[in-house]
């Protein structure tokens, strides 16, 4: 089954070529073909997840070069989780896009969408820092094209583009530093070098390197000082793209922090836990307070994402604090809490964005200022919104409750009581901003509103979105088994290191034989 590992990257690349041909020949088939491909991604992602459940951490070396010379793709439970997440949210976005019966605008976006899928999957799988940069760039250049095609003026999305150009420059700088000091870009080899004896200069270089990767990841995740791009991008994107972006754009950064901290730099991560907690708390409160002051539905939801990223960063801070303490059960619990929060947040946020976009297109504009009375216009839409808002706030039978409960439990057991207090205050403020949408959009009556003729929205796909965010609870039993497996593999960086060397001939030995 190892031959399947590069396919999450290769299949979307094949799909781009195929979709471009279909777009030229018969453009009405484009969406159907795109959905078929995304269904294929889900199948491949689940196959890889089962493979990683039985085999643990597996490494695929491209073109059978030896260990440090080859570009390697690593399939471990964390990357398998992210692959499944990416494939499922892509399928949901396709369903949402295909069932809509409005103008056939933005058709060529689906081709860009699959290219972005390739880049994100490559970033989740790769075991090489330069390849990580290349994957990020594949994904970023296509997303620049996508957002630029959605705005009339460059100024609308300039923050997103400049921030990501600077982040890419920092990532490349980190790659240069890594190669200059340690002589390798392979994550497994770097992890082994860092675990061994180091000179003073190398220790300083490793700290700087980890700081640079953390900086890049925080820029991608949209944490406190770097969140301004998020509302402007989410406000202009078309509906299905918006749902996909909100599910995965920030999660790439979170994945990079988890991978660097737990697998590559486990000896250096705990120096940075106060940074993560402070930035997490700042983005929690700044995000939610900015959301309270917003006047547009989609911008409000985007600022919400900032505050949810704050929750995840606090959880990551706890994980980094626990790494040197050798308390494996507690470390496993906090890793599972963070990963489950990421899964929950992707689905709930994309469902909220999907419903928010639906409200905007029903109403014709995005302002929140005046009462609208959606409940009397479209009862089902209002109810769906209510359910996903409850899931976000963490009402007991929803996935948000489980995610928040796990996060708070890990914080209580590692005695971060002030974090628990601030998270609960943040949760109450989140509810307040949800109430703002409720009062201005759902309740009341807008008498001047004229319902657009033959307006139809895709009830089915929206229903799927909300269903997924609630059904996560019922899959808790298999997910808890998966979480045990994931945290067991991830809490021990030795598994990650040794997986690179098993089953391949060493390149150095091969050359010396000749």
């Amino acid at each position: 089954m190892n031959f399947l590992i590069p396919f999450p990257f290769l299949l979307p690349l094949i799909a781009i070529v195929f979709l471009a041909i279909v777009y030229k020949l018969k453009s009405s088939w484009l969406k159907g073909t795109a959905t078929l491909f995304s269904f294929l991604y889900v199948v491949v992602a689940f196959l890889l997840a089962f493979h990683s459940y039985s085999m643990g951490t597996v490494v695929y070396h491209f073109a059978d070069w030896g260990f440090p010379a080859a570009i390697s793709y690593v399939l471990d439970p964390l990357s398998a989780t992210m692959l499944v997440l990416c494939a499922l949210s892509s399928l949901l976005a396709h369903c949402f896009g295909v069932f809509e019966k409005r103008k056939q605008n933005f058709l060529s976006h689906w081709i860009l969408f699959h290219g972005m899928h390739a880049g994100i999957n490559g970033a989740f799988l790769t075991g090489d820092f330069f390849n990580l940069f290349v994957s990020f760039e594949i994904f970023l250049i296509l997303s620049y094209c996508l957002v630029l095609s959605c705005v009339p003026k460059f100024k609308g999305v300039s923050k997103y583009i400049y921030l990501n150009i600077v982040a890419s420059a920092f990532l490349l700088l980190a790659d240069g530093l890594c190669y200059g000091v340690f002589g390798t870009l392979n994550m497994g080899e770097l992890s082994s070098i860092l675990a061994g004896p180091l000179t003073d200069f190398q220790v300083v270089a490793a700290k700087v390197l980890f700081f640079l990767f953390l900086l890049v990841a925080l820029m991608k995740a949209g944490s406190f000082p770097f969140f301004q791009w998020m509302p402007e991008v989410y406000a202009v994107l078309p509906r299905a793209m918006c749902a996909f972006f909100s599910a995965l754009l920030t999660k790439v950064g979170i994945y990079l922090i988890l991978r660097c901290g737990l697998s590559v730099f486990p000896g250096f991560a705990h120096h940075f836990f106060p940074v993560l907690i402070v930035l997490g708390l700042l983005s929690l409160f700044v995000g939610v307070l900015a959301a309270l002051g917003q006047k547009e539905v989609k911008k409000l939801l985007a600022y919400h994402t900032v505050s949810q990223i704050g929750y995840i960063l606090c959880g990551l801070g706890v994980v980094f604090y626990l790494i040197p303490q050798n308390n494996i059960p507690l470390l496993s619990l906090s890793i599972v809490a963070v990963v489950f929060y990421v899964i929950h947040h992707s689905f709930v946020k994309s469902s909220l964005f999907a419903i928010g976009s639906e409200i905007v297109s029903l109403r014709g504009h995005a302002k929140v200022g005046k009462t609208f009375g959606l409940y009397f216009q479209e009862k089902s839409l209002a109810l769906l919104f209510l359910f996903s808002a409850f899931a976000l706030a963490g009402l007991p039978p929803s996935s948000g409750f489980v995610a928040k409960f796990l996060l708070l439990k890990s914080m209580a057991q590692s005695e971060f009581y002030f974090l628990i207090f601030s998270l609960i205050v943040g949760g109450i403020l989140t509810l307040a901003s949800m109430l703002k949408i409720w009062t201005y959009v759902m309740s009341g009556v807008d008498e001047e509103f004229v319902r657009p003729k033959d307006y139809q929205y895709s009830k089915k796909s929206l229903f799927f979105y909300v269903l997924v965010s609630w059904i996560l609870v019922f899959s808790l039993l298999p997910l808890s088994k998966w979480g045990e497996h994931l945290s067991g593999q991830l809490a021990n960086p030795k598994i990650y290191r040794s997986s690179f060397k098993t089953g391949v001939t060493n390149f150095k030995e091969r050359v010396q034989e000749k």
Partner: protein
Amino acid sequence: MLAQYSLIMAALFAIMLFVGFWLLSALQLWKKIIGVALLGNAVNFYLVLSGFWPRTKSTDVYVLVSRPAFLSLGDSEFFSDPVSQALVLTAIVIGFAVLALLLFYYVYQVLRKKDQL
């Protein structure tokens, strides 16, 4: 020899990086595009420099030869490091793609304005 050379290289890198960031904070789009180009080239320059490595204890040959990639052969063999060159080629191509996209958008905007007038 080594100290001066490293200092010149570091100063060049710092100047390029500084001017790049400075231009990136300008208001006009064309200045920002030049800033993006300079920033990318500064980082590429750094990537080339990362291939150099002290081969022997006497540091006089530091800048003249780089180490072989992946191998630790005897000091007598003279290899140059292919990896950092391969990396910088890829990085240049990617930076060029971003630059081309921004330039295309700039030209597109200017032409559209002229059409309206």
